[in-house]
């Protein structure tokens, strides 16, 4: 005898967050995911509004002739602000936001510790902005795969083979139109 089909739960909508992106959602069917090498991803959550957001950034490296201990944090700051603003637009409140940080691995020995620099930037940003960091899984030598349910704040992070992490460009691609001036 043929049984009636069990009603399916709504399809999970999987959204990949690429380097240079920040997205937010309050949809319980949405899952954000990303793969991180030396990049850092922030999973931000407002538990009252049940709104979550994720970004994925890599600080720009200094030009080859410059001191390799200083990095341009302007781009990381932009992506943090973009994340907070995406959450604002859905009704989240900054004072309630809690953050989890992932990534920032130093994949190859002997290379500049770019991952640690990204990780340090992210921690400092949260501290300066007064946003509580409830968890971090950063640095080390392994790439990570992160899944985040923005409407519930649940995160799953696993290490993965380093070749799964996208090849990182030394300079983060800047959003078209950034810095543009319009005088009215």
């Amino acid at each position: 005898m043929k049984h009636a089909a069990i009603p399916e739960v709504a399809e999970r909508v999987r959204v990949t967050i690429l380097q240079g992106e920040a997205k937010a959602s309050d949809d319980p069917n949405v899952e954000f995911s990303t793969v991180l090498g030396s990049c850092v991803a922030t999973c931000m959550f407002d538990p009252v509004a049940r709104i979550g957001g994720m970004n994925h950034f890599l600080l720009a490296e200094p030009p080859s002739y410059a001191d390799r201990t200083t990095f341009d944090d302007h781009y990381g700051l932009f992506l943090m602000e973009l994340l907070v603003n995406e959450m604002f637009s859905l009704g989240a409140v900054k004072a309630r936001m809690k953050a989890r940080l992932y990534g920032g691995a130093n994949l190859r020995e002997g290379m500049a510790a770019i991952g640690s620099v990204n990780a340090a930037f992210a921690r400092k940003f949260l501290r300066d902005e007064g946003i509580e960091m409830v968890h971090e899984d950063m640095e080390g030598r392994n790439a990570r795969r992160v899944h985040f349910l923005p409407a519930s704040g649940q995160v799953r992070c696993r290490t993965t083979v380093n070749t799964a992490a996208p090849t990182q460009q030394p300079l983060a691609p800047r959003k078209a139109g950034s810095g543009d001036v319009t005088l009215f």
Partner: protein
Amino acid sequence: MKQATRILTVDDSPSMRALLRNALTTNGFEVEQAEDGQEALDWLASNEVDVVLTDINMPRLDGFGLIERLRSSARHSNRPILVLSTESSDEKKRRARDAGATGWIVKPFDAEKLTNAVRRVTHSA
């Protein structure tokens, strides 16, 4: 010697305020800072600046509200007000222009373009 152009930056993010202070003072501007539109209004009630540079998304009083409030006062009717925002939609820009903004700059800002814009609106180029 000509006095330095004085800018009031309005942004709720301490990280962004630090970045702006550094970029603008390096380029010879005098910088004052407020954390949101309301603090900017209170400060401007008893202080003078040449340019106001404001974010949009802020608690208490946002950038649009700040512009409207400043424009409703004769003292600030001609003061250059530049918006500095991660947003770049035509709808938001139109709203700022209608409220009386002088210009719109998209974040992440370029220090040179920002400096040039400030000089243009203060006619100090």
